[in-house]
């Protein structure tokens, strides 16, 4: 591995810098691949809408819980995702179709809910905490798109024990960075809302609900396309137009 050009540099340093480069690549892959999809800043208004009526303390608690949940969910998808899919005989496209439909339903409900019956008729703190995983973490923060990216990244197995350990470390640090940004964005969302004022917040909420709906459609469409991609190489006698896949909204 040590090229002749590095003759003057000690071997250990070269090996170390090689590992470091590998580590940075893996870290960038995790953070760069998943963070834009999780998009904590974009999800923050939705977090506000779903926790409408909760007091400051509950929200701070929820932000921390969602961040921890996201960390566990992304790490779980990175490490076990591919195996879980194999055990249940699922393909990534199907996860995208199903998850996209769930996200569509969430966005649709938020978009069409009346302000009075808004997701937020004040809810007592305890039942709010129960919502920390669903719907706040699972379809809202770590959406099926992020899960499928995490599964794909985790499925690229590194070779050698050392590389696996490095990739694992990079996964932990990258996921920690993502959850930390989720925590920061959700923790300080109420302040931004205060600064914006009620009317503007409502506008931002509706806009974000619509964007969530669009993201849901996008994920479903990606899933349908990857499922339909299996059709692309069909023998000519069977080359019918792709069937509309079972994308369903409730």
């Amino acid at each position: 591995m040590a090229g002749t050009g590095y003759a003057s540099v000690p071997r250990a340093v070269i090996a170390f810098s090689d590992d470091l480069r590998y580590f940075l690549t893996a870290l960038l892959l995790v953070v760069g691949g998943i963070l834009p999809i999780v998009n904590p800043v974009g999800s923050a208004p939705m977090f506000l809408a779903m926790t409408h009526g909760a007091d400051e303390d509950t929200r701070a608690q929820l932000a921390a819980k969602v961040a921890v949940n996201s960390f566990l969910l992304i790490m779980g998808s990175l490490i076990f995702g591919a195996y879980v899919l194999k055990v249940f005989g699922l393909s990534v496209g199907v996860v995208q179709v199903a998850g996209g439909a769930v996200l569509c339903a969430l966005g649709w409900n938020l978009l069409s809910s009346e302000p009075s019956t808004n997701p937020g008729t004040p809810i007592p703190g305890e039942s709010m905490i129960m919502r920390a995983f669903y719907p706040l973490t699972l379809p809202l923060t770590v959406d099926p798109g992020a899960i499928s990216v995490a599964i794909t990244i985790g499925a690229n197995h590194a070779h050698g024990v050392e590389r696996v350990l490095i990739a694992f470390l990079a996964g932990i640090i990258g996921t920690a960075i993502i959850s930390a940004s989720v925590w920061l964005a959700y923790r300080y969302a109420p302040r931004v809302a205060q600064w914006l004022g009620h009317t503007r917040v409502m506008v931002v909420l509706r806009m974000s609900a619509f964007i969530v709906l669009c993201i849901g459609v996008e994920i479903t469409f990606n899933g349908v396309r990857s499922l339909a991609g299996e059709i692309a190489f069909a023998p000519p006698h069977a080359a019918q137009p792709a069937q509309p896949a079972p994308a369903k909204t409730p």
Partner: protein
Amino acid sequence: MTDEIRGIVQGVLLAAAALIPIVNPLGMAPLFLTLTRDLTDAERAVLARRVATNGFLLLVVAIFAGDYVLDFFGVTVPVLQIAGGLVVASLGFRLLHDSGNDPEQRQVTSSASLGAKAFYPLTLPLTVGPGAISVAVTLGANFPSTPQPFFYDAMSAVIGALIVCVLTYFCFAFAERLQRTLGATGLAVVMRLSAFILLCIGVQIMWNGLDASFGISRPRG
């Protein structure tokens, strides 16, 4: 004789290995728990036994009569998968959105409707779903027609189904230990994840049905 025993053991393993990942008793236990959350432990154990019995009968019927029933109604296996996948997906969707005070699920409390609930939704789409039924139908459709090999194959398939249902019974009957270990919040998380996986399984079964009925997918390799 040893050859025959080996054949039966292989058949049992084949049937059990084909059915267990699809029936997936361990993964469905949190969902079973959610659908029966108002029952006492004793009632839940009774229900678990009934679900396991129902599931066994359903699998045996699917193995032996499935082919003929489908033929009689002119239904093909892919269509069964599309329709059944839809049912599974909708159950998964409902469980995912389950807020804990759904009146339909409160009905489980009254023990009169216990028996009715034991079949649908607990046995039919949850335990023995369309995936398991289509596997069972396929198993039955591949039986040889001569009497003696038929007998051995049939016996091993039935034993395989029995193993799966006994496993289901144990997973469901001891589901409340899961609750105690995980705590309320942990169980809620596991339940939502299982519901999401159930939704995905439903969509996958539907897609498999669509794929098979149009036969346009390239062979996976």
